[in-house]
C-alpha cells in the first residue's frame, strides 16, 4: 500500500488530501495524479521525503507527497 498526500490546492483539485493506493506493479507518479492546468515545473514530488518527479516510480510501501511550488511570499 502506497500513500499519496496532496498538499495545498492539489487536494482541492483532486478532491482528496490523502489516499492509499494498492500498487501491484511499479507505477509512475503521473499515472495516479493529474493536474492538467498546472505547469509541471510548479509541482514538487517527494517520495519518502526525498526529491522525485512525476516520472519517478512508486513502490508499494512508498509515502508520496505532492506540493505546489510556491515562491514563499
Amino acid at each position: 500500500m502506497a500513500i499519496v498526500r496532496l498538499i495545498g490546492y492539489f487536494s482541492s483539485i483532486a478532491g482528496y488530501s490523502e489516499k492509499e493506493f494498492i500498487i501491484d506493479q511499479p507505477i509512475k507518479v503521473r499515472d495516479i495524479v493529474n493536474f492538467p492546468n498546472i505547469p509541471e515545473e510548479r509541482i514538487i514530488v517527494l517520495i519518502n521525503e526525498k526529491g522525485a518527479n512525476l516520472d519517478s516510480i512508486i513502490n508499494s510501501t512508498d509515502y508520496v507527497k505532492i506540493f505546489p511550488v510556491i515562491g514563499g511570499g
Partner: protein
Amino acid sequence: MTGYHGKLLQVNLNSNNISDFVYPESWKDDYIGGRGFAVKILWDQLPKGVDPLSPENILIFSIGPLSGLTLPSSSKMVVAAKSPLTGGYGDGNLGTRASPMLKKAGYDGIIVTGKAEYPVYLLINNNNISLEDARNLWGKGTYDTEAALEKLYGKKAGFLTIGQGGENLVKYATIRSQEGRSGGRPGIGAVMGSKNLKAVVVLGNQQLPIVDPEGVKKLGKEGYRTIKKAGMYEHWMAQGTTMVLEWCHETSTLPTLNFQQGQFSGFKNLDGNELARVKTTQFGCPRCNMQCGMVIKDEAGKDSELDYENIGMLGPNLGIDDLKKVGVLNWLADDYGLDTISLGSVLGMMGEASQHNILSEKVNWGDFDKFKELVTRISFRSDELGNLLAEGTKRMADHWGGDAINWAIQVKGLECSAYNSFSIPGMALSFATSPIGAHHKDAWVISYEINETNRDSYEILKAEKVIELQRIRGGMFESLTTCRFPWIELGYSLDNYPKFLHQVTGNSNWDLNQVFKVADRIYSLIRSFWVREFHSEGIEWNKNFDYPPAKWFNEELAGDGPYKGAKLDRTKYDQLLMEYYNLRGWNENGIPKSETLAKLDLVDVDNYLKTLI
C-alpha cells in the same frame, strides 16, 4: 518625459522648510528608484553615526518608475531610514494608494528630516504642500487615524500613518496604509514617530511622466490577462499566501513554539483551507488583480486581514490554534502599527523564557489572553516588561543573558520571518544575508532547496540561488516598486519588466542583465552603509553578522516529523557563506572588495571604506 519627475520632496521638520531635491540624472540608470534611491540618499546625506531616533535621521518614502501605472501590482512604495532596531540600513515596502498619488502629485519620493515641535501630518496636494496640526490624532490607532483623515480628504487620497507603536518608539513599529497594508519592519514607523510625524496624506492629479503610454497600457492589460489565465490563479485567489501554512507544516519548516519545532498539531485550524472557509472578504493593494489580504471576523468582531506571515508568527509560534484569536492579535498589531513578524517572535521568545522558568512573570504556550495583554503593554511601553519587549529579541537576549541568545530568532537584530530553517541551509543563508536583517522578501529558496537540491546540503548552488533571487526580488522589484507576487506565485514573466522600463523611460538599453547590475550596486552600497554605521559604534564588520540565529546551530529541531533532530553545521555554513561572498565579490569579512566596487561604479564608496578599514 523620462519616466521620472526628477525630484523628491524635501521636508525639514525642524525649520518647517519644504523644498524640492533635484537628484542627478544619472540616478535613474544607476539606481532605478525605490530601494535604490533610498540607500543612495542615506549613503550621501546621512551623517555617519546618527542615532536612528534622533531628528538627524532621514526618513524616506520612495517610489519607482513603474509605481502606480496600470500594470500588474504596481502600487508599492519603499519606506526607509537608518533602523532603530538594527542600527543599519532599514527598509520595507507596502502597497498603498500613496504610491500612485505621489507619482500624480509630481514627485518620485519624499525625504523627511528633523523633528516637529508638536505632532503634525504632511499634506501633499500636487504642489501645495503643508504641515498640519496632528495633535488631535496623536494617541490614536492607525484605523481611527485613517478614518479621521479620510473624512477630511476623501477615500481617494493616499494615507500613510503610524499608530501608538510608532509614537512610543517601539523598535519594530511599521507604517500603515489604508488598504490594510504595513511596511518598514525594522522600525521605520518608530523613526516616523520620533519625528512627531503622525501621517502623510497625498493627493495628485497631474499627468504621469511616461514616454510610451499606449505601449504601457497594452502590455499592462496583457499582464493582467496573463495573470488571470494562470492555472494557479483561482487557488491563489481562494487562499493567497495562507496556502503556505500547510506547506510549511508538511516540510517541517513551520515556526512552532518559538521555532523550537517545525510542525504544529493544530495547523488544520489555521491553514489556507480554513481561511478560505471563514474569510468574509479579501483586500489588496491598488492596481492589483491578485488581492491577497484575507479578511476574517476575529473573536472581538473586528475585520482582521491575515496573510501567512502573521498567522504563522501569531499562531503556531505562540501555540495558538484558533484563527479568530490569531485575528485579534493581528488586528491589535495593525492598529498599534507593529510588525507582526517581530511581534510574534518577541512573544514567542517570552514564551520560551517562561518555559525555562527564568522570569517571575510567565506566559504559557497558547495563553491567548496573556499574549494579548502583552501586545498592549509593548505598544505603550507601559511597564518594565512591556518596555523590554518593545526593544526586540536581540536586546531581550542581551538583557536576560545566558541561554537567551538561543531564543532570539533574529539576524542583525531583525527577527526572522515564518520559516524555520534547522534543516534548510540555503534559507538560513538567505535570512543571514538579507540586506535589512532576517527577512524573506529578498530571497526565499525553500521550494528550490527541497525540489532541486539535496535539502540539507550546503552546495554552492544554494548560494547562487540566493544571489539570483536577491537580484530579482531585492534588487529589481524593490527598486521598480512593483509587487513580486505576479512573478513568484503565478509565473508572470520577468522579461516584461525591462520592457515596461523601456516604455516608461524611453531607454532601450534596459534588459535583465542591466537591471541586475543595478541590483548588485544596491546590495554593495547597502552593505557599505552597514559597515560605515557599525564602524561609527566602534564595531568592525565581520562575517559573524551574516550568521543565522544561534538556535539553528546550538539546538535540534524538536517535536514530530521526519526532520526531528536536524540542525545546522557551523563549519559547513561557514564554507557556504564564503562561497556567497566570493560570488558577490566581497572579502572574507563580507565587505565589498575594491575591484567589485569599481565594477559597480562605486569608487567613491571604496575610497571612503578604505579610510575605515
